[in-house]
């Protein structure tokens, strides 16, 4: 047993040391595997970053009320008298003054200019009620101040400011014939709200001719469990019949569509490329076995078994794959991690998000690389183990 282990170690070290002799072929395998891992991880980091931005936006103890079947805030309408009924609904927390903690909101799409491409993009302008900012966790004004109620002032999320032109603090923006002053910039803890423009609900309602209705109502619940009370209250009142969801569930739905799509693109592409890289790995390892035919036969002739030859070849292949996988992960981290991108989200507006790698994703990338290495090494390793001694020693 011990001698077998020693044989395996000896042959493996010969294998690894001989890589240098096939450096170009080995290097091409390493780079091919690294590229596969980069493509996979870039897509997964994109999906992950998008998912985190949106899914991280919702809270369990905030209820969002939408028109039945509307799916997204942009489609929804809630009439003024419905808002009053919701205010009186059960399960809604009240402030020190006894008023319900709710925020009726309007969600409009306005045009902005994307900095990178100078093309028009859909940006959300949200008219929020008095409690609007308080109903979201971690809202902090980082520059300027909050808008004054009743005036044509807006505050903008810092992600929106970074990606789109013309929203610098103090500047005037026009949406159609209406003019607004940017008086503040806010941080929302990396959530989707950072891609939004906020203004006072009443001002938005009157300037956009939407006086009789809002689009959604957000309410702070007395606890996550109170959601069902509010839900059955809405279901049982024929004047309401609205969709009541927790904000967390709402954003989870919003996130899943786009990030699923990105992942569905990423995996098939990476697998197809992995098959190409597999062909390369097989080629390299068969060449390795062929180049060492004499050496393997010599070892066999002096009493080494077939198994060490098998392990040595497999380890060589797995090492190349592991190097490729780690190289790919490192390159993805350096090139893509933290890169900001924006795309159309479920509300038909731009969502700014960062590519985000996670240890779990890197693990997926390295595993894919090792699978390529394993299959790419297995068949050549079997050939090495079974090679007849005579064939290896006869002059070529």
């Amino acid at each position: 047993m011990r001698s077998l282990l020693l044989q395996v170690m000896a042959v493996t070290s010969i294998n690894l040391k001989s890589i240098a002799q096939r450096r170009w072929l080995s290097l091409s395998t390493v780079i091919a595997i690294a590229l596969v891992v980069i493509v996979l991880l870039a897509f997964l980091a994109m999906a992950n970053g998008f998912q985190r931005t949106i899914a991280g936006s919702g809270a369990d103890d905030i209820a969002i009320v939408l028109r039945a079947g509307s799916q997204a805030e942009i489609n929804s309408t809630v009439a003024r008298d419905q808002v009053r009924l919701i205010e009186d609904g059960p399960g809604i927390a009240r402030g020190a003054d006894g008023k319900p903690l709710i925020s009726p909101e309007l969600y409009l799409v306005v045009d902005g200019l994307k900095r990178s491409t100078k093309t028009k993009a859909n940006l959300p302008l949200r008219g929020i009620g008095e409690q609007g900012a308080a109903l979201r966790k971690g809202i902090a004004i980082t520059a300027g101040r909050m808008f004054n109620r009743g005036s044509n002032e807006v505050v903008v999320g810092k992600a929106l400011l970074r990606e789109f032109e013309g929203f610098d603090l103090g500047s005037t923006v026009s949406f159609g014939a209406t003019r607004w002053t940017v008086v503040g910039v806010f941080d929302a803890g990396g959530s989707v709200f950072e891609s939004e423009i906020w203004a006072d609900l009443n001002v938005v309602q009157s300037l956009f001719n939407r006086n009789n209705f809002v689009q959604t109502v957000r309410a702070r619940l007395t606890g996550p469990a109170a959601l069902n009370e509010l839900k059955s209250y809405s279901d049982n009142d024929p004047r309401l019949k609205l969709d009541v969801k927790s904000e967390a569930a709402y954003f989870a739905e919003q996130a899943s569509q786009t990030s699923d799509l990105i992942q569905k693109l990423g995996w098939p592409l990476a697998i197809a490329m992995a098959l190409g890289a597999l062909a390369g790995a097989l080629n390299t390892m068969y060449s390795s076995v062929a180049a060492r035919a004499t050496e393997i036969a010599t070892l066999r002739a002096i009493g080494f078994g077939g198994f060490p030859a098998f392990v040595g070849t497999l380890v060589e292949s797995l090492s190349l794959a592991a190097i490729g996988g780690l190289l790919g992960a490192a390159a993805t981290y350096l090139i893509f991690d933290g890169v900001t991108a924006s795309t159309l989200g479920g509300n038909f507006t731009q969502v700014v998000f960062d590519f985000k790698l996670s240890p779990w994703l890197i693990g997926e990338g390295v595993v894919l690389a090792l699978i390529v290495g394993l299959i790419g090494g297995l068949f050549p390793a079997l050939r090495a183990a079974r090679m007849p001694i005579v064939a290896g020693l006869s002059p070529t």
Partner: protein
Amino acid sequence: MNDFDLVRKNLFRRKLRAALMIVSILIAFMIFGVLAGFYRAFTAGEDRAAADRLITVNKINFTQPMPIAYFNRVRAVDGVRQVTHANWFGGYYQDPKNFLMTLAIEPATYFDMYRSELDIPPEQLQAFISDRSSAVIGESMARKWGWKVGDRVPVASNIFTQRSNGSHTWDFTIAGIVKGKAEQVSTDFLLFQYAYFDETRSFGKDTIGWLILQTNSPENNDRVAKTIDAMFANSTAETSTDTEKAFGKAFAAQFGNIALIVFLVVGAAFVTILMIVGNTMALSIRERTREIGVLKTLGFSGPRILRMVLGESVLLALLGGLPGLAIAALITIALRASLANIAPAFAVSPVIALEGIALMIALGLFTGVIPALNAMRLKIATALGRG
């Protein structure tokens, strides 16, 4: 035995190695075919956009409404041949997940505007116009849901509500099926009459989503667009008028830089095979050094050897690339129905196929050139002397 036989025999002397290289080339061209096909279909809207068609939307954003009065005012602008309007309905069938691309339109002008794209039998168009609560559907939607002329279809809206009963659902009788006049025209839509829509909805009365207009000649586009936008300046609904092409392009750009992503992935796939195949070719020529020496001794000239080696690498690229493109074509056919919405006529077009073949030849020449030059310059004495 001619040179081609020699090239073929050389290529397949190690069958496994040749097969592996062919597989990796095949995969790269499969990725190329599918992604290029997707990109072309995704941007097909821009290419098909008529040069003389303009879109007028609310300046705030194209999702904001405009007064219906704009329809007649734009119609009166000098240089405008035809105007029509459309309104987004947010339609779905039974479950909100079953999205139906549904627009409320003005039938007579709409079908005149799209006469070079959409084809509807005149009697069906007549039936559509005369029955206010009817709708027409595109061929691909009809196929998808198995709907026929005369069927009654309930279409729900995720935005609008009926004024009379508070319902979110409108029932339509299918009056006709619209065919596309070209493959790239998406026919996954349902159209119904604006007049009926405006009368039955609970809010938004007398507003429209956007105007589509056709100018007398593309040269008038700029002037017409400026006139229209100036006409509504400083009103409560200012407008922004642009060519259909620019509008489509800006909309596609909102999803992100699709072109860059496609380019990077295809690029990565090609760099991979370039290295693998290039290295392997070099290796296989090196193994044959002695034989090349023999060929030279027999009187094969340097350039002839060069041609043979290049021929081998080009043959290899074609043997992998052509089936790769064929598989890509099959994949696009299989996925076409499910991508009908975002990329109609998803296919490996003749142009993509030709580009692919040009790439194969380039790849073959590129991977073969260094080994081929080395083989050409090889001195007989060195070649025969080498182990």
